[in-house]
């Protein structure tokens, strides 16, 4: 019990004094996962909208693949990204294995199907006739797509949160492709794993609390928006 109590006490101390190492790790985590989420939004929303609105052979298979991708195990993603970026792998010439860029790539691979799947569902739940109504109002195809995205904005917000939540808390891929290099590619989750294995519970708990707080704030924002948008 003492161990936990001491750990929590020290953890709060690290947090309220803005310990430079803890803060550095947190900012790096936010930067990497934020970038990965942003890229996955660009790819996921555009592809999701296209798949939702178009008819092509194999569409059902594509949708089931996207849905499967929503649950990609980070370790598997880590494995494949490592192989791709390995020095004599197909993309080895970039020399980016064990860099923050590699983590961004791996996290993008994890978040994109999540964003894509939720986008797909969000667009498909809109009434089909809404598209006809928008076109009948004189919209171009591009205007129609934009209006549909705006109509689905609440669910798309959920996509942002789910994507970000998925990658900020992911550890397997980050450790495999980032290498957990101190001050360079060490993020919240990889640091927590390492500190725990070393028995440095105070830092591990501090990092854990930050992760929990992030998760809490993400959900708080989401809930706030959903409640505000709900009809009175």
């Amino acid at each position, binding site marked *: 019990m003492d161990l936990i109590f001491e750990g929590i006490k020290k953890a709060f101390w690290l947090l309220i004094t803005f310990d430079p190492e803890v803060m550095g790790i947190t900012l790096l985590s936010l930067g990497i996962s934020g970038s990965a989420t942003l890229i996955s939004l660009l790819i996921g929303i555009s592809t999701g909208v296209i798949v939702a609105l178009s008819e092509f052979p194999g569409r059902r298979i594509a949708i089931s693949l996207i849905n499967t991708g929503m649950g990609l195990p980070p370790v598997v993603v880590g494995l494949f990204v490592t192989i791709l970026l390995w020095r004599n792998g197909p993309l080895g010439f970039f020399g980016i294995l064990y860099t923050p860029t590699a983590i961004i790539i791996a996290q993008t691979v994890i978040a994109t199907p999540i964003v894509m799947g939720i986008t797909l569902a969000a667009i498909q739940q809109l*009434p089909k*006739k*809404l598209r*006809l*109504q*928008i*076109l*009948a*109002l*004189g*919209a*171009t195809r591009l*205007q129609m797509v934009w*209006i549909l995205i*705006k*109509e689905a*904005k609440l669910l798309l917000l959920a996509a942002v949160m789910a994507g970000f939540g998925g990658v900020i808390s992911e550890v397997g891929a980050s450790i495999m492709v980032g290498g957990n290099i101190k001050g360079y590619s060490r993020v919240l989750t990889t640091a927590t794993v390492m500190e725990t294995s070393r028995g440095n519970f105070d830092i591990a708990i501090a990092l854990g609390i930050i992760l929990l707080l992030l998760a809490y704030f993400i959900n708080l924002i989401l809930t706030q928006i959903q409640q505000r*948008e709900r*009809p*009175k």
Partner: protein
Amino acid sequence: MKTDLRDSKPILEVKDLEVNRGGTMILNVPSLLIKEREILSLIGPNGAGKTTLLQTLSYLLKPFQGEIYFKGEKVKSNHSVFEYRRRLAMVFQEPLLFDTTVYDNVASGLKIRGMKRSEMSGRITEQLDRFGIGHLSDRSAKTLSGGEAQRTSLARAFALRPEILLLDEPFSSLDPPTRDSLIEDLEHILRQTRTTAIFATHDRLEALRLSNRIAVMNEGRILQTGFSGEVMNHPVNELVASFVGVETILTGKVIKKNGGTFIVSISGQEIEAVGEAQIGEAVLLCIRPENVILSTRPSREATSARNVFPGRIEKVISLGLYQKVQLNCGFPLIAYVTHHSIENLSLQVGKEVTASFKATAIHVVRRKGK
């Protein structure tokens, strides 16, 4: 009684329109012409092809064969489809509003068509007032009742000042009182704005009320087109008759009023009906055949009904439980009688009978503003 359309130019012309899906022809309209300021109703049962026709006319349903001419110019060669669509507006059965305020919903079409926000406000306020939803302007569209939502949808379409308005069963998901008040307003607004409209409905009374001309559709084809009374009273075939010809529909003018009733003159005969109407007003009287009583007694005093007319039987058609008797009383009249009565009264073609119906049994369709 009708808007005078003789000088009206054709606004929309359709040639050899065909839509095929999965090897079946779901729409086949060799020709259809709509004049400026005309209101054409498409009536027919569900699945008759009304929606398909409207969506094809607005190029929302592709592909199709055939040609559409807008103001004499072929769409696609002289207009782009997109430009053409921006001269129309369409209202669907569902309101299909956007997740924003009523005001922004009414503005949405104008915004899509690239109008500046400052230029819109006059037009939007005009439509909000016209449809009686001005007080809802800032409300979220999600909180509206069915009637309010459909009013917003109509206001959004009218704000575009369309050259042709396409209405796809806009009232069918509303409850009767809401529907009635909306139809009344829409009728007034259509006349006032002199909007050309094509109106799909499965309710022939709605069609009678709103349109100049009626096209009866079934299985993707137009079976008959004509002025309202013409189609209703002279259906070209059994199919049309089974859909529209179930009641007698008479056109006449109100000549007298007394209390809650009024007298309508129809081909020189006077029929008493119940309700509100102005003297000189044109009305349609709809009489359901089961409300018409036939007797062989010539006496006028024999019944309490005010509307008693001698007539001659022109046709007797068996309809299973009933026989449909077509009479000529100076105006056409249809009655349903049981087989029993047919035998008792020995009703047959050429026989003189007395037909009577109560003033309260007449459904009056007012055609004000025409």
